[in-house]
């Protein structure tokens, strides 16, 4: 439940970003195949990028530190999207095979890998655009 995370590691900006990405998805700006969990990933990533860029603007960190933090954040976001897409593909493949061809259920990981390739390609196309949004936000909030 959402309540279980109260006061833990979820920041209010994560929530604001998540609601924003939901609005964008419902408005057709984001591919409808992007799941709620993926929106969570994008939200946390956007928070990290915005926070990092704000620190850089305030000269709290150097340009090299900024680049390094962004690199790690970007890598984490992509890995998280891949992980979620892979889990979803495995689940879909396993569900499909168990209902239709139970003897073939052992090939689920192969099927999942193929399905995942397609899913990941879509994510990458989306991520290239969506992950650029935080820098725009910084410009709007702090210019």
């Amino acid at each position: 439940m959402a309540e279980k995370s109260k006061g833990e590691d979820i920041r209010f900006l994560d929530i604001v970003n998540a609601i924003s990405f939901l609005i964008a998805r419902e408005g057709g700006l984001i591919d409808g195949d992007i799941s709620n969990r993926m929106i969570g990933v994008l939200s946390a990533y956007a928070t990290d990028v915005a926070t990092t860029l704000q620190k850089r603007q305030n000269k709290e960190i150097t340009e090299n530190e900024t680049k390094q933090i962004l690199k790690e954040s970007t890598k984490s976001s992509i890995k998280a999207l891949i992980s979620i897409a892979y889990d979803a593909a495995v689940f879909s493949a396993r569900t499909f095979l168990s209902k239709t061809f139970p003897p073939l259920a052992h090939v689920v990981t192969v099927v999942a890998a193929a399905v995942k390739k397609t899913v990941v390609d879509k994510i990458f196309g989306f991520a290239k655009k969506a992950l650029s949004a935080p820098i725009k936000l910084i410009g709007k909030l702090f210019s």
Partner: protein
Amino acid sequence: MEFSNEIANIIKRTLEKFENEGQQDPFGWMITEIMQIMNVDENMAKNIANEIIEGIEVYKRIKEENPTVEQLTEGKLNEQELKINDLIESIENRILNKGEE
């Protein structure tokens, strides 16, 4: 208006709305917003909120533990196959170049 600008505008408006309405109870505000945006009841909104929070937690856990892609996909796809480093460089350049598409 370009895509990332539109998203940034939405985030800015949402942040203003949150500051006006939601600061006392962020999670309650989140559920109310989900109910309105997706036209669902409270239980469904809580489920959606939970899934979103799971995604946030996955990101934070991966950032902390830094597993390889191979570890995440049980060795079925590796980082080279996914060209993950090319993608990271591409996104980095977009961010560092003011988010231009």
